């Protein structure tokens, strides 16, 4: 049972998968409740452009891709606010697809990046280096600090941004900081989960937790726990099944969602039966 832990690369991957799961679970709560799943999906694709540009310009990957994602998020926000007739989904589509296209264009020009391109698209947790582990741990710590310090402001802003501003919450600043934290989350998660499946890691733990609780505090804790356990569980199972770890993490999280959905349906059915009995 402990056989995979004899390998350093597996231990690193196991820890990173757990951390990334917890990080995505934490940020995913706000992404899901703010109905921003599409922006999470778009940003992960947009950042591929930033990752390729960083590679071509020999710039630090994390800084380059993170900055690229942050600027994309700010550009989306600014365009949506200035041209409301367009709608957020259209603006996200334009900005993030264009950004993704920049990445693809550069890859076709500099073919040496193909290997890393595949890793970024599909995830390659077993190829994680110690410095990547450090980056994931640092980002998890920073995101946790941000959420803890701004917990009450974030809750109010997520619930009702307009009224939160009337109550003195600096919504624009908080929104920008959140975009920065989300960009950081996506950039460190890219190599583990892969761009194509990253949105699932962001959305499914929070959506699963939402099925299980009506309390915001419990939702945050549950989402983080589900994300971390699915990350580690997915990694562990992938060792034996010999399938892509990123895909396996997402499949384990989806299984948790299916179980939570079944439990939620059963609970509603039981409540309805009890209600009918009370009427009799």
């Amino acid at each position, binding site marked *: 049972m402990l056989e995979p832990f004899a390998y350093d690369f597996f231990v690193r991957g196991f820890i990173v998968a757990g951390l990334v799961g917890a990080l995505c679970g934490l940020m995913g709560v706000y992404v899901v409740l703010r109905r921003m799943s599409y922006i999470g999906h778009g940003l992960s694709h947009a950042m591929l452009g930033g990752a390729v540009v960083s590679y071509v310009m020999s710039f630090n990957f994390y800084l380059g891709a993170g900055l690229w994602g942050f600027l994309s998020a700010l550009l989306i926000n600014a365009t949506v606010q200035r041209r409301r007739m367009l709608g957020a989904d259209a603006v996200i589509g334009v900005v993030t697809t264009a950004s993704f296209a920049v990445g693809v264009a550069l890859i076709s020009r500099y073919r040496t990046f193909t290997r890393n391109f595949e890793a970024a698209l599909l995830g390659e947790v077993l190829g994680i280096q110690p410095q990547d582990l450090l980056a994931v741990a640092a980002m998890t710590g920073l995101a946790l600090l941000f959420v803890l310090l701004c917990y*009450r402001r974030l809750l109010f802003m997520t619930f009702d941004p307009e009224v939160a501003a009337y109550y003195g919450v600096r919504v624009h600043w908080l929104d920008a900081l959140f975009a920065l934290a989300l960009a950081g989350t996506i950039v460190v998660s890219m190599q583990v989960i892969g761009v194509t499946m990253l949105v699932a890691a962001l959305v499914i733990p929070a959506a699963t937790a939402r099925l299980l*609780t009506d309390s915001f505090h419990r939702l945050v804790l549950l989402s983080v726990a589900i994300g971390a356990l699915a990350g580690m569980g997915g990694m562990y199972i992938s060792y034996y099944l010999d399938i892509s770890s990123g895909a396996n993490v997402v499949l384990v999280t989806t299984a948790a969602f299916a179980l939570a959905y079944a439990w939620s349906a059963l609970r509603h059915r039981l409540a309805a039966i009890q209600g009918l009995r009370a009427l009799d």
Partner: protein
Amino acid sequence: MLHPYPHEPRGEAPLVEFRQVTCGYSGTPVLLDVSASIWEGEFVGLLGPSGAGKTTFLRAILGAVEFYRGQVLVEGRPHDRGRPLAGYVPQVETVDWNFPVTVEQVVLMGFASRGWRPWPTREERQRASAVMERLGIAHLANRHIRALSGGQQQRAFLARALVSSPRLLLLDEPTAGVDIKTRDDILHLLHELNHDGTTIVLTTHEINAVAAHLPRVICLNGRVVADGPPAQVFTPEVMSQTYGAPMTVVHHEGLVLVAERPHRYYEEHLARSRPRQEGGGA
């Protein structure tokens, strides 16, 4: 009637002052050349058709609109020099009822911009409990907001506005979509708060059930059409000018009642059907 007489204005300067304000959104004015003063301790109702600028009036006090001309002074300061300490209760229709929060979590949001600790202080919890107790929702503290009745939901958002003890309370249609008993309870509660010294400004569509019971009403239709006690403001001319339709005003046992005249279609229909009925009967 809750308020037979308007309050005497307190203080030397108005708490809120609109000075020839033209404001709106995205370059489109909603309120035009509005001047009005609200004194401490007043209870003011904003009346007018949809799109008349009632909510914009409240947002102008909060500094959340684009100002094209004039300015709003709150406690003698322009809106852009820090936000006023006003409690705001939004229309319940705008609330996401599926959001995972309990009543207590909603009420504690009133302290959200204070400090950086993720949990509330003991004082904040005690204050929230005291306000919920006063509003009769303390026993619902751990319930999800969706599980409340319309009146209880309104009270939860009122409690959020009250926890920071604001001098000014702004409510956007606090009685919309609630039954008669709940509406009566909410109005009495606001009346009590007003008598404890809180200045209240609310918007409403209910002329007879709400506005007629307030000491002061401002009729809006982009501009201020009339401003004063209902007995003075509710005239057929003012109401017609405000709503753009003929309205009948009836005085009955000290109450002023505003009745809509039948819609033009029915008037025409009645006019057409009358001779036929008369003819048929002959």
